[in-house]
C-alpha cells in the first residue's frame, strides 16, 4: 500500500441502500436491513476502478450534516474527510433526501448523486427527469438499483467527474424553498391503486389492527424458532451425533486411556460411557454444546431476525411498543436494540447508538446486559430446561421480563433528565432479497463460530485447570453458604459462575452434570443469565458506557440476580406451581409498568408546560 488511495464516502439518509451499494462496489460483506440505523459505525472497503484504487467508506445514515445522535456524528465527520462523496438518494422520496444533498453542495465537497431505488419509484408512480436534475444540481446524477447492480458501472465510470457544489450557504428555510422548486421541475407523480402490501403497511401501524398483529407475529416467531430449532436439534442428534460422533469419541477415548488428555478431551465417564451433555470434555460436551444444542436454535433465530429486519417490520414494532417503553424511560425505537440482543448483546449495545440521549443508552444497555439472554444462552435454556416442561421455561422468561421492567423503572427514576420522544421513519415493506438474507445469516454464524468457539473451549479448559489447581474448591467453599442458603444450589454450582463470564451457554450446560432438580435448574439458569455479562459484552459495555455507569450497571446486576434467584428459590413449587408463578411474575411486571412508570414523561411534561407559559 505505497500509493495513497483516494477516499470515497457513501453518504445519505438512513435506509436508502448505502450498505447495499457499498457491498456491491467493494465486494465486502456488510449487514443490511430495512430499518433506519442499521449501520452505526463506518465500514471500509476497496474499489478498483480502471486506473485508481478507491478506499470506500460506508457512513451511517443521516438526515443532515448537523448531527443529532452519535451515529450521525460519525457520518458528518466522514464527509469532512472525503475526497469524493457519493450521496445516495432515495428516488421514491426525492424531496426529503435532497435536504442532505443541499448541505453537501454547500460544504463544497466533490459530489456525485446516486438516485437509488429507481425501480421502486417507478412502481409507486414517481417519474424523475434525471438529466434535468443533473443540470439543476450541477453534479453528476446516476440512477441505480443497487440490490440488482443496475447503474453501478455508470457510477464507477462517473467517479472522476465528481464536482463540488456552488458552495452557496443557505438557511434551512431557503433550502426547502430551493428543494421545492427543483422537485417541481423534475418529478411527476401519478396516483396508483393501493396494493395489499400497502394496506398491510397501514394496518400494522394502527393500534387496533397493529397490536394484535404484533402479538400474533412475535408469538408465532417464537414458536417457529423453538419448533424448528428443536426439530433441527433432533435431526442432528439422530443422524450425526448418535450414529457417527459418539462411536468416534469412544474409540478415541480407548486410545487415550486414563490420564490428563482423556480428562481434558473426553471428560468424565458415566457408567463407563461417554455422555455428550455431561462429560464436560472439550470434544464431548464442548463440541456437542456448540453444534448440537446452540447452533440449531441460533440458525432459526437469525433467519427469523433477518426476515423481520429486511421486510421493514421493526420500525412498526417500535411504534407498537412506544407506549410501554415510555413507561420505562425509553421510547419505541429502543425495542430494536432489545430484539437484536436476543441474538448477541454486542451488536445490540452498539445499535443503541441510534438513541439520542446518553440516558436512553444507559437504560437500554443495562436492560440488555441483565435481562436479555443471547441466542446461544437461550438455546441452552430452551434445550435443557424445556425438558422439565414448558412451564419452567415460562418461569424463567417471566422472571427475566420482570427484571427487565424493574431495571427500566429504577434507572428512569434515578437518572436525571428525561427521554425525548422518538422520531423514526417508517420504511415501506419490501420482500427480503434471498441473497442479502443468506449473506447476513452466513456472516452472523461465522461471527458466532469464530468468536464463540475459542471462548467455549477456553472456558472448559479453564474450568479443568482451576479444578486441578484447587481454586474452585476454595471459591465453592467460600460462596457455599450464599448458594445453599439463598439460592438452594449445591456449592458445585459456583464454578458455573466463573465459566459464565467466558460463555453463558457453556455455563448453563455445566449445570447438567450436577444432577439438579427442575427447580434448582430454573434458579441456576436465571442467576446465570442475569448476574454478569459475558466477557465480549462486558468489553463493549465498558467502551460504550464508561467505567462509572458500568459500575452502576454491575451493581444492579448482582443485586437483582441474587434477589431473583432467592425469590424463585422461595416461591417456586413450595408456594406456587410453575405455571401460576410464571403468570404471577408476568402480571407483576404488567402492573409495575402500568402504575409505577413514566417518571421521565412527567419530567418532560413539566418542562413543556413551563416553556408554554413563557410563550416560547
Amino acid at each position, binding site marked *: 500500500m505505497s500509493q495513497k488511495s483516494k477516499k470515497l464516502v457513501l453518504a445519505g439518509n438512513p435506509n436508502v441502500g448505502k450498505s447495499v451499494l457499498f457491498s456491491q462496489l467493494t465486494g465486502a460483506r456488510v449487514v443490511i436491513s430495512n430499518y433506519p440505523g442499521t449501520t452505526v459505525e463506518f465500514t471500509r472497503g476497496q474499489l478498483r476502478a480502471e486506473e485508481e484504487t478507491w478506499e470506500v467508506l460506508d457512513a451511517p445514515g443521516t438526515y*443532515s450534516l448537523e448531527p443529532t445522535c452519535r451515529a450521525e456524528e460519525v457520518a458528518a465527520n466522514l464527509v469532512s474527510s472525503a475526497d469524493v462523496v457519493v450521496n445516495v438518494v432515495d428516488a421514491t422520496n426525492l424531496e*426529503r433526501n435532497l435536504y442532505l444533498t443541499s448541505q453537501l453542495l454547500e460544504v463544497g465537497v466533490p459530489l456525485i448523486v446516486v438516485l437509488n431505488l429507481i425501480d421502486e419509484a417507478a412502481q409507486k408512480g414517481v417519474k424523475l427527469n434525471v438529466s434535468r436534475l443533473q443540470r439543476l444540481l450541477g453534479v453528476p446524477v446516476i440512477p441505480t438499483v443497487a440490490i440488482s447492480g443496475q447503474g453501478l458501472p455508470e457510477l464507477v465510470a462517473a467517479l472522476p467527474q465528481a464536482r463540488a457544489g456552488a458552495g452557496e450557504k443557505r438557511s434551512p428555510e431557503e433550502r426547502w424553498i430551493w428543494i421545492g422548486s427543483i422537485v417541481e421541475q423534475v418529478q411527476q407523480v401519478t396516483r396508483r391503486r393501493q396494493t395489499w402490501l400497502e394496506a398491510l403497511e397501514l394496518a400494522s*401501524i394502527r393500534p387496533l389492527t397493529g397490536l394484535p398483529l404484533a402479538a400474533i407475529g412475535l408469538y408465532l416467531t417464537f414458536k417457529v424458532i423453538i419448533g424448528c430449532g428443536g426439530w433441527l436439534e433432533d435431526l442432528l442428534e439422530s443422524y450425526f451425533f448418535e450414529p457417527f460422533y459418539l462411536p468416534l469419541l469412544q474409540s478415541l477415548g480407548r486410545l487415550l486411556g486414563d490420564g490428563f488428555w482423556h480428562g481434558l478431551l473426553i471428560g468424565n465417564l458415566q457408567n463407563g460411557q461417554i455422555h455428550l451433555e455431561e462429560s464436560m470434555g472439550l470434544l464431548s460436551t464442548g463440541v456437542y454444546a456448540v453444534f448440537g444444542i446452540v447452533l440449531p436454535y441460533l440458525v432459526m433465530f437469525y433467519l427469523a431476525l433477518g426476515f423481520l429486519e429486511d421486510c421493514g417490520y421493526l420500525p412498526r414494532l417500535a*411504534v407498537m411498543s412506544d407506549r410501554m417503553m415510555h413507561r420505562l424511560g425509553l421510547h419505541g425505537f429502543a425495542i430494536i436494540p432489545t430484539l437484536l440482543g436476543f441474538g448477541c448483546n454486542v451488536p445490540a449495545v452498539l445499535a443503541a447508538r441510534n438513541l439520542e440521549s446518553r440516558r436512553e443508552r444507559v437504560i437500554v444497555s443495562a436492560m440488555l446486559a441483565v435481562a436479555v439472554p443471547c441466542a446461544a444462552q437461550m438455546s441452552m435454556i430452551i434445550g435443557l430446561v424445556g425438558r422439565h416442561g414448558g412451564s419452567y421455561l415460562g418461569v424463567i422468561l417471566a422472571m427475566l421480563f420482570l427484571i427487565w421492567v424493574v431495571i427500566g423503572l429504577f434507572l428512569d427514576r434515578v437518572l436525571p433528565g428525561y427521554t425525548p420522544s*422518538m422520531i423514526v421513519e*417508517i420504511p415501506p415493506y419490501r420482500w427480503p432479497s434471498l441473497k442479502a438474507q443468506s449473506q447476513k445469516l452466513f456472516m452472523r454464524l461465522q461471527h458466532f463460530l469464530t468468536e464463540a468457539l475459542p471462548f467455549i473451549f477456553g472456558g472448559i479448559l479453564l474450568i479443568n485447570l482451576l479444578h486441578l489447581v484447587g481454586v474452585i474448591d476454595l471459591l465453592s467453599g467460600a460462596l457455599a453458604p450464599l448458594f445453599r442458603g439463598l439460592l438452594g444450589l449445591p456449592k458445585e454450582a459456583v464454578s458455573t459462575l466463573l465459566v459464565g463470564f467466558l460463555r453463558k451457554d457453556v455455563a448453563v450446560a455445566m449445570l447438567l452434570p450436577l444432577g439438579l432438580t427442575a427447580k434448582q435448574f430454573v434458579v441456576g439458569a436465571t442467576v446465570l443469565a442475569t448476574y454478569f455479562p459475558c466477557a465480549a459484552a462486558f468489553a463493549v459495555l465498558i467502551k460504550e458506557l464508561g467505567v462509572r455507569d458500568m459500575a452502576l450497571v454491575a451493581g444492579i446486576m448482582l443485586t437483582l440476580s441474587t434477589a431473583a434467584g432467592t425469590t424463585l428459590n422461595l416461591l417456586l413449587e413450595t408456594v406456587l406451581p410453575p405455571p401460576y408463578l410464571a403468570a404471577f411474575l408476568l402480571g407483576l411486571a404488567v402492573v409495575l409498568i402500568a402504575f409505577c412508570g413514566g417518571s421521565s414523561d412527567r419530567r418532560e411534561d413539566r418542562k413543556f408546560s413551563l416553556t408554554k407559559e413563557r410563550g416560547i
Partner: protein
Amino acid sequence: MKTVSLAEMKTGESGRVKKIYGGRGMVARLQALGLHPGKRVTKVSTFFQKGPVVVEIDRSRVAMGYGRANRIFVEIDN
C-alpha cells in the same frame, strides 16, 4: 381554519404545518425529515393513551412520540 397539534389531529385529516415548538435540536431533526412549517402532512395513525403518532409527508411516513406530536401545530384543511 382550525389549528391543532398533531397529537389532537384525527386519523385521516390533512393540513399544513404552522408552527413547531421545540428546542433547536428537535426543530433541526424534524426539518431534516421534511417536517417544517408550510409542509403538507396527513395523519395516518393515532394511538390511544398518549401513544405515538404516524404522519405521512410526501411518500414517507414518520412516527413520533406523543410529546413531540403535541408540539407541532397544523392548520387543518376544511
